[in-house]
């Protein structure tokens, strides 16, 4: 019996160790620190110890901590992408208008080269999302770009808020209405998918409550989909909703009010600028493209000034990639908010740091350079909002995950030994579709 206990103990400890990811110590000397929350500090040092920011100040000296001279360089918090589909090898469970039970966290792919390429663009965290085929899609995973780890468990950002993908408009209408001839075929139908799911979940929760209180003798049937929708109603699972048109954005806020759901982040939200006062009043977040438009009808009446209008109306706004390509230069996408709407440097950089952190519920951990926050940092040679800026080094938890001076061409971790004729991607004709239909587009629609 005693040995069994020891076995359990050993297993328990091993489990803890294996999920524990590597942290590092580093002293970044004499850089221009863009803190986001406390202004820009010139000629300042930043010390990371055990993966956390330990000290910010002048002339910090330590013992034998690895030191990096950042004289003439810009040091900012690691960039956060609130909407991406990299590092997962399944995006859409496009088989039902409601698939709340599935989770992209079950399909993490630490070998995806796009993780490294995102790091080379200064991105340390991304929100790996389910696709937009279903009105209620699957649950998402916030990951840290710990390139080099091979255990998917080590990619998860431990302690991040749980999130789930919703989708409005053309995509669920196209997949289920046009494709499957079932509801939703219209934006009216999309509303009812939510109302049905939330109402059923209320009944489900009531049935369990009655059983738990002894009011009913028979336990209700366990339903993993209803469990997930119940978690939304309880506030344990935050909605990130693919959306474009103003009317559908208002619709979902009304549904959420009726069911007492208080938190939501609208994704894409191309017409968010048209209902910015309503979004601000609700306290909804907006995660937008810098300048994508016209790739489908529901984004024809959009504007590159979206981020600026939303920001100036008090909506907490981020700029996301939703693309393997854009994720490599989100600092440039943020800079476009200066061409289109004249945001200040700090407002523009908040769009890719603190604001997405707030939207993902991780702003106590990341998004700014502050003592106690995670050592997720990127060093640029020029101001990150300049088109000429090039990321030099990217740290995750104080560990160097990208270094331009140690950057051979082929950074793949896994190479297929049977690959005799490697794939060559011809310059893509037109990548500007939200990649939210990934997995369905290639296999169902384009062929």
């Amino acid at each position, binding site marked *: 019996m005693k040995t069994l206990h020891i076995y359990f103990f050993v297993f328990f400890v091993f489990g803890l160790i294996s999920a524990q990811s590597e942290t590092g110590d580093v002293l970044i000397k004499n850089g221009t620190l863009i803190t986001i929350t406390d202004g820009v500090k010139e000629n300042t040092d930043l010390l990371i110890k055990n993966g956390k920011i330990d000290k910010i100040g002048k002339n910090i000296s330590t013992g034998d901590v690895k030191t990096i001279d950042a004289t003439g360089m810009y040091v900012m918090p690691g960039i956060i992408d609130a909407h991406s589909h990299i590092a997962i090898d399944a995006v859409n469970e496009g088989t039902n208008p409601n698939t709340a039970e599935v989770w992209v966290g079950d399909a993490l792919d630490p070998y995806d080269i796009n993780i490294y390429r995102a790091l080379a663009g200064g991105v340390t965290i991304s929100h790996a999302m389910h696709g937009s085929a279903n009105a209620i899609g699957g649950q998402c995973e916030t990951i840290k770009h710990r390139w080099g780890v091979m255990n998917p468990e080590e990619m998860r950002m431990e302690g991040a808020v749980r999130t789930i993908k919703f989708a409005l408009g053309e995509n669920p209408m196209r997949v289920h209405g046009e494709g499957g001839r079932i509801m939703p075929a219209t934006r009216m139908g999309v509303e009812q998918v939510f109302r049905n799911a939330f109402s059923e979940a209320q009944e489900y929760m009531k049935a369990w409550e009655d059983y738990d209180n002894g009011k009913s003798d028979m336990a209700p049937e366990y339903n993993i989909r209803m469990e997930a929708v119940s978690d939304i109603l309880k506030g344990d699972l935050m909605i990130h909703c693919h959306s474009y048109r103003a009317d559908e954005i208002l619709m979902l806020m009304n549904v959420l009010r009726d069911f007492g759901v208080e938190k939501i982040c609208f994704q894409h939200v191309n017409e968010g600028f048209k209902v910015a006062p309503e979004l601000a009043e609700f306290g909804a977040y907006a995660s937008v493209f810098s300048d994508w438009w016209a790739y489908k009808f529901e984004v024809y009446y959009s504007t590159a000034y979206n981020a600026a209008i939303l920001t100036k109306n008090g909506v907490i706004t981020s700029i996301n990639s939703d693309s393997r390509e854009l994720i490599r230069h989100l600092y440039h996408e943020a800079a476009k908010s200066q061409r289109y*709407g004249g945001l200040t440097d700090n407002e523009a950089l908040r769009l890719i740091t603190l604001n997405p952190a707030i939207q993902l519920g991780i702003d106590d951990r990341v998004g700014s350079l502050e003592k106690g926050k995670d050592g997720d940092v990127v060093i640029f040679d020029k101001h990150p909002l*300049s088109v000429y800026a090039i990321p030099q080094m990217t740290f995750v938890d104080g560990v160097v995950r990208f270094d331009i001076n140690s950057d051979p061409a082929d950074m793949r971790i896994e190479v297929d030994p049977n690959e005799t004729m490697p794939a060559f991607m011809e*310059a893509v004709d037109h990548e500007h579709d939200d990649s939210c239909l990934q997995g369905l587009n290639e296999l169902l629609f384009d062929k």
Partner: protein
Amino acid sequence: MNKLILIFAILAFVLPSGLYGQQINKAEAGIFLLKGGELELMDDGRIKADLLIQDGLIKEIAENIDHPTAQRIDCNGLIVFPGMIDSGTRLGLGEVGSISLTQDHNEIGTYTPQMQALTAVNPNSVSIPVTRVNGVTSVLTVPSGDRFPGTAAMIDLLGYTPNQMYSGFKGLVFNFPSAGRRGWWDSRSEDEIKKAEKKQWDEIKDFWDKAKLYNKIIAGGKKPDYNPQLQAMVPVLNKEMPLLIEVNERKAILSAIKWGSEQEIDYILTGVSEGYLVADSLAKYDVPVITGPVLNNPSRNSDHYDVAYSNAGKMQKAGVRVAIRTNETENVRNLPFNAGFAAAYGMEWKEAFKAVTIMPAQIFGVDDKYGSLERNKIANLFVADGDPFEPKTDIKYLFIRGYNIPLESRHSYLYDEFLEREPGLDGN
């Protein structure tokens, strides 16, 4: 040119007032004197001088110009740049990406060189004003599709008919066969891929031989049977129009150079995403290259992350004549940022700027009219408060064919309307 101005003047007069302001305020015709700006002259540096726009042309560049009637525009502290040219787009040929009936760049058929991009250019495309306010004044608009999808045309981003917009260059597109796998979804075996390639080449040779025969019959003064496909090839075979060979993969680029040199034609390579690997060959054969988008993913998983950023610069440094394109439809406005990234990743600023101005003009053979600030060139230019590649920079004035273009688009109109929405919340 004068005839064009006349057409404009008549149009401006007769257009019913109901059309006025439907999308964008009218461009303003007139004589404009740009006073006190710095002029970007590329190889000749930046000089402080005045610039006179008259009859749609850059009439004069000198230190102190006076003109009795010209509208004076104070450019002190500002920089005057030649308008940028995007050497590969689908601008005007597509309106809403996912709605196929608004897409006019891709005709059915494998050999359709007779398709004319210029025919389908929608002068009122919402994307046109969206593009030009960033300083892009001309584009090559290109059909896409199968082997010979059609004929591309260069247009200025002003005008109410395609013919008005046409700026005097056409090129015929040839999508060069690429050996290899196209992507993860391409599940063909190596053998199947090779067979498919051979079949493609058999067809191309057959078509090419027929075109040559057709041309010979015409040259002999005879009238062959009606054949629009072969007829469309005649200007290429007579070197009156270049072939735009779209090719990206390293080996395919080398084959394209070999094939192009063997034919008695003028040709330009487009795409050329692995050009940096064969830059010496491109330079040796003096093949002009249109490359881009710069803001693009590497073509292979094994590639260095910055290959698309650095490709243009590496080719240019090897002595290749390089122009930069976006290959875009609604976001051609990102041309300056594509050039900016090329400059960040190794291309000299001046060379990157030439790659979106004088270089495409030279490659298209229209550098007598386009691509730089020179006397008697068409007045396609813009005035900015700084480097046009930097997102922070503001464009202050824009001229196309001498017209003062309002810096407005649907995007800016929506900003004006919705920044402080009225009524606001709950009708207040």
